[in-house]
């Protein structure tokens, strides 16, 4: 029975020893291999350019916003199409070349499963963009057959009407849909687009403002409205749109840059507010802070500071900040060009540009 005792003791203690072993294992492995330690930072490493074990001098920044996703070459056609659907990019020629063979062959249509309808929709829009009317017809036909009562398909019918400039019929169709569903965002946006395509900018602006009263959190719509206002040279209103965008997505350096550019333009057009240049400078600086690789932000910072310097001759302390910002922007620009392996002509052009703005003293 002492044998039994030891067996029992061992049975109870083994888990204890094992748990101790696993508890201390990470420490042992950690000391032996660098890879284990940095695997916890994989997410951070992806932000830092995918290099594991990079030195901690590089600050962790969220990824810069690219309007085009980098899609790996090894992804299949249907995965690429899916990625583009998710990001909403407009790549008509590539979509047509990838998706047309997929929908033409019965086996690949079957392989897509339920995704085939999304692919039809994507291919339809791309075909309209490329001017492939008969391909668009085919896709629309397939969708109408499958979803005869669908509002989403009606919107596509409207897009086709727009593409052949039958704007009156398109608007009538959208009005019909909106009578049943007054808050259908995508059809509301198509109504705005129809106005824009006819060149009725004022009507488009009015419609888009009504849309934004309801759907205030739509960045795409604010961007479109800003574009419309800029076309009409209404800089204050465009600046307001970009301010809304900055409020919605404060980490997006592009919106800060755009806001700053609009303010700067308002200042040079002469009709803006007195603090336009300062606000522009601040937002350029913020954009640079969010994305140190943005040449636009640095150029903007440089230009805004130079403009402030010349506007406030002998303003003492304020002038000093602007002077330091001009120097900072110049230094950072040269460093950025070198970091990106700019050609000697480009670097030369940059240097001449900086010298052309030689500030006195």
């Amino acid at each position, binding site marked *: 029975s002492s044998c039994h005792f030891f067996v029992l003791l061992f049975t109870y203690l083994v888990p204890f020893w094992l748990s101790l072993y696993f508890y201390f294992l990470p420490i042992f492995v950690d000391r032996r291999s660098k890879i284990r330690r940095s695997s916890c930072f994989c997410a951070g490493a992806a932000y830092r350019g995918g290099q594991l074990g990079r030195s901690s001098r590089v600050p962790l920044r969220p990824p810069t916003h690219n309007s085009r996703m980098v899609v790996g070459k090894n992804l299949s056609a249907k995965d690429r199409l899916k990625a583009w659907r998710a990001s909403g990019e*407009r790549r008509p020629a590539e979509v047509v070349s990838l998706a047309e063979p997929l929908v033409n062959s019965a086996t690949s249509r079957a392989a897509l499963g339920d995704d085939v309808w999304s692919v039809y929709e994507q291919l339809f829009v791309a075909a309209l*963009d490329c001017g492939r009317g008969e391909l668009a017809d085919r896709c629309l036909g397939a969708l109408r057959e499958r979803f005869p009562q669908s509002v989403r398909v009606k919107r596509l019918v409207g897009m086709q009407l727009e593409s052949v400039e039958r704007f009156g019929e398109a608007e009538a169709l959208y009005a019909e849909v909106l009578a049943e569903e007054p808050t259908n965002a995508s059809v509301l946006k198509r109504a705005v687009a129809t106005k824009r*395509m006819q*060149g009725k900018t004022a009507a488009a602006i009015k419609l888009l403002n009504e849309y934004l009263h309801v759907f205030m959190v739509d960045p795409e719509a604010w961007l479109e409205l*800003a*574009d419309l206002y*800029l*076309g*009409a*040279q209404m800089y204050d209103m465009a600046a307001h749109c970009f301010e809304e965008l900055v409020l919605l997505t404060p980490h997006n350096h592009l919106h800060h840059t*755009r806001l*700053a*550019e*609009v303010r*700067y*333009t308002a200042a*040079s*057009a002469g009709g803006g507010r007195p603090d336009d240049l300062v606000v*522009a400078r601040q937002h350029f600086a913020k954009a640079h802070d969010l994305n140190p690789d943005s040449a*636009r932000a640095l*150029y*903007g910072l440089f*230009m*805004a500071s130079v403009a402030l310097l010349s506007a406030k001759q002998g303003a003492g302390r304020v002038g000093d900040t602007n002077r330091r910002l001009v120097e900072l922007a110049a230094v950072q620009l040269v460093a950025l060009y070198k970091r990106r392996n700019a050609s000697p*002509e480009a670097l*030369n*052009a*940059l240097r*001449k*540009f900086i010298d*052309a703005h030689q500030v006195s003293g």
Partner: protein
Amino acid sequence: MKYEVSRKAYVKVLLHAAKYPANAVNGVLLGRLDQASGGNSAVQVVDAVPLFHSLLGLTPMLEVALIQISEHYEGAGEGPLRIVGYYHANERATDASLGGAALAIG
């Protein structure tokens, strides 16, 4: 006043517009003023530099671009080129109007 547009400039302008079919685009035209052709001056458009394809009316980058272009091409090897013109393509194919931005830059 005669205007001669080189093939290089023409093709560049068209390619720029074709690359961004859904946007308005603009850019500058570079060339020389030829005053020696029998009393009539001719403007030779030799090259084109595309500028923007979104939000065309904004001045900061435009000023940067114009300064750098004029500085770079004035010192060019085969003969200095000046900014002699501006090209602009509207978003809609049938729209041939010059908006406020185009007029201001021009």
